[in-house]
C-alpha cells in the first residue's frame, strides 16, 4: 500500500517476490504463469515456483514436469517445482558445507522421516529455498513468483516458521527462519496476490482471509485478481445484441445474468477492500475467456496483463 494511485500490475512489477494464493479453482497457476511470462517479455529475469505433487505451471509453459530443477522456459523465464526433500539436501550440503556428512549420513527414507517428524521443517525448507531463489541465486532473478497452495494451506505455510521458533528449534534453522521472515515481511520487496472469482462464496472466503493474513503473517497484500470476469463492456455489447437475435435470446440472457453477478460482486469487493484500507486500483480483472489454451502464449499474457 505504498502508493495509493498505482495499479496492482504496477505494484507487482516492482516486487522481488510475489506470493500467489486463493481458493481452489480460482486460477492461481494461470495468474502465476501468465504474469511471469508477461514480466519476462518486459525484460525481467523471472522464476516461477510451484511446490506440488502434480505440476501445473510447467504444463502451462508447455513443458514436461520439471521437478526440483530450475528449468528454462524461454529467455528470461524459468520454472521449478520445489520438493522439500531436495531442499533439505541442498541446505545441508550448500549452506552447512556438510556434503560429506550428507553422503555418509542422510539417506532418502531417513530424510523423509525427519521432514515428517520435525514440525515445521519441511515448510522452513520450502520457504528457505524461495529465499535462496530471491537473494542468493546467481545470476540473480529480478522477480520470483510463487504459485502457492490454496488459502488454508498457504496460511499454514506462512505461519509455520514462527511457530517452529517457539518449539525450540535452534542452530542454523533459526537464521533460516529469520532471514525468510525479513524478506517476506519487507513490503518493498514482497507481496501477496489473491486470486478469486466473481462468485459470492468464493469472494467472501477470500475476503475473510485478508485480515488473518495481514495480522498473523505481517506480509503485505498487494491486491486481488478476479478471474472469469464479465465487465460493463460485455454488458453494453449484450444489450446491443438483443435486437434481431431471437434464437440466441436465452444465451444472451444467461450472459447478462453473468454480468450482473460479476459487477455486483465486484462492487462488494471494492467496498470491502476500501474498508480494509486498500485502494480500488488494487483489483485486477481477467475476463472470462471461455477456454484457456493449454500453453500460455505471449499474446495471451499481454491480453491478461496489459493495462
Amino acid at each position, binding site marked *: 500500500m505504498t502508493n495509493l494511485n498505482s495499479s496492482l500490475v504496477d505494484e507487482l512489477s516492482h516486487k522481488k517476490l510475489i506470493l500467489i494464493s486463493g481458493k481452489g479453482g480460482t486460477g492461481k497457476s494461470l495468474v502465476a504463469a501468465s504474469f511471469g511470462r508477461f514480466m519476462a517479455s518486459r525484460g525481467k529475469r523471472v522464476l516461477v515456483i510451484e511446490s506440488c505433487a502434480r505440476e501445473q505451471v510447467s504444463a502451462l509453459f508447455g513443458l514436461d514436469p520439471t521437478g526440483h530443477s530450475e528449468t528454462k522456459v524461454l529467455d528470461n523465464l524459468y520454472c521449478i517445482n520445489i520438493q522439500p526433500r531436495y531442499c533439505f539436501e541442498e541446505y545441508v550440503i550448500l549452506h552447512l558445507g556438510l556434503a560429506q556428512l550428507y553422503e555418509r549420513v542422510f539417506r532418502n527414507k531417513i530424510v523423509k522421516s525427519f521432514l515428517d517428524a520435525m514440525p515445521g521443517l519441511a515448510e522452513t525448507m520450502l520457504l528457505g529455498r524461495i529465499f535462496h531463489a530471491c537473494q542468493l541465486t546467481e545470476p540473480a532473478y529480478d522477480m520470483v513468483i510463487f504459485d502457492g*497452495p490454496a488459502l488454508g494451506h498457504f496460511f499454514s505455510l506462512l505461519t509455520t516458521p514462527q511457530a517452529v521458533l517457539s518449539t525450540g528449534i535452534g542452530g542454523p534453522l533459526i537464521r533460516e527462519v529469520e532471514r525468510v521472515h525479513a524478506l517476506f515481511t519487507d513490503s518493498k520487496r514482497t507481496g501477496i496476490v489473491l486470486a478469486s472469482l466473481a462468485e459470492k462464496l468464493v469472494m467472501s472466503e477470500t475476503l475473510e482471509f485478508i485480515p488473518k493474513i495481514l495480522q498473523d503473517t505481517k506480509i503485505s497484500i498487494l491486491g486481488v485478481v478476479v478471474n472469469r470476469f464479465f465487465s460493463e463492456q460485455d454488458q453494453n455489447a449484450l444489450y446491443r445484441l438483443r435486437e434481431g437475435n431471437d434464437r440466441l435470446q*436465452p444465451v444472451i440472457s444467461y450472459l447478462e445474468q453473468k454480468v450482473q453477478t460479476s459487477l455486483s460482486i465486484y462492487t462488494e469487493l471494492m467496498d470491502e477492500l476500501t474498508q480494509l484500507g486498500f485502494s480500488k486500483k488494487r483489483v485486477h480483472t481477467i475476463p472470462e475467456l471461455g477456454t484457456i489454451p493449454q500453453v500460455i502464449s505471449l499474446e495471451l499474457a499481454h491480453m491478461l496483463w496489459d493495462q
Partner: protein
Amino acid sequence: MQDGVLLPWLQSKKVVVLLGAGGVGKTTCSITVAFKAALAGAKVGLLSIDPAKRLAAALGISLGRHPKRIPLHNSQLRGEGFIEAAMIDQKGIFDQMVYKHAPNSQTAEKIIAHPIYDAASTKLAGPLEYMALAELQNMIEANRYDLIVLDTPPDTHALEFLSRPNVLEGFMENRVMNWLIKPFHMASRMGVGRILTAGEKLMGGMAKVTGLHALRLVAEFLVLIQQVIDGFHLSGEKILSTLTQKSTGYILVTTPQPMAAAACTNLGKQLIRLGFHLDWIFFNRCLPEHLAKILESYEPYSLGDDGLSVDRLHARYQAEKKVTSDLLSLFEGDKSLLSLSIDETILPIDSETAIWDFANSFG
C-alpha cells in the same frame, strides 16, 4: 449420462466417498447427496471438510466431531429420513485419539501439553483424510445410519491413505523410532554426554541442522506418543476393510475444465490402481442443457465484435464437450462407470432451500 440411477445406487450403499480437486463443488455435492438420501427416508451421517462457511452456518453444521442433527424443512421428507453432520476438525480428533490410546491420563496430558504438540499433531495426524477415516469408523460403529457420506479434502496429497490407512504419516518408518530416536532419547535422559547409539552420526548431523534441543524435544515426544501410534495401527486395519467393501461407493467430482479434469484423471487412476472401484463421475458446473443446444449450432464470429462473450461461451461449450468425452473415454473401459452432469447454478448455494433446489436439479 444416467438419469434416475443415483438414488437407487445411494440406497444400495452403506458408505459413499466423494473425491475431487479443490473448487469443483465436492463439498456441496456431498451435502446434496446426503439430502437426496434423507429425502427418500434414509438416516444419513455426513462427514464434511471445511464446507463454505455460509453454507455451514445456514445448515447449522458446526465445527466439531460430534454429529449434529441438521433441521430439515421439506414437506416431501419421507419416513424417518434425517441427516446428522459433523465437520472434521483435525486437532480435535487428534486430541481424542491421544486420550483414547495413551496408556494413562497423565501421559495423555503430557503429550497434549508438550511444546511441540500443536505443531506436531498436524504432522502426526497426517493428511486430513486419515482423520476423516478415523471418524468414519466411529460413525459406522455407532450403528445409527443407513448411509454415511464422506467428503474428503481436496486432492493434493491424493490417496496415499487409501493404500496405507494403517500407517500414520509422519512416522513412515517405525524403525526410525526404535533404532534411532528411542536410544537417543534414553541416552540424553541419562545425561550421557555422547550419544552412544548406532545412529550417532545421523543424530549428530541432524542436530547440526535443527539444534540439539529441538531434536531432544522431538525424541521425547515420539517416545510419549508411541502407544497412541500403536492404537492408530489397529484402527487402520478396520478402516481398510470398510473402504474395500462393496457397500462402499466412490464418486469423483470434477468440473468439465482441463485443470480439474487433469486432477480427476489423476485421482481416478490412483483409485483404480489401489484396487478400489470408481463408481461415478459427477461433472459439476456444466453449461445448462438448454444453452448447449443453442450453442451447438452457433457460428462463431457471426455476431461481430459485440458477439465476443457469445463466442467465448461457444468456446467454453466446445472445450467442455471435449473434456467430458475425453474423461469418460479414459474410464469407460470399466463398463459399469456411471456419470452425470450437473448444471451450474445461477444463485450461490448457501441455504437449505438452495440445497433442495440443487438436489432436485440432477440425478
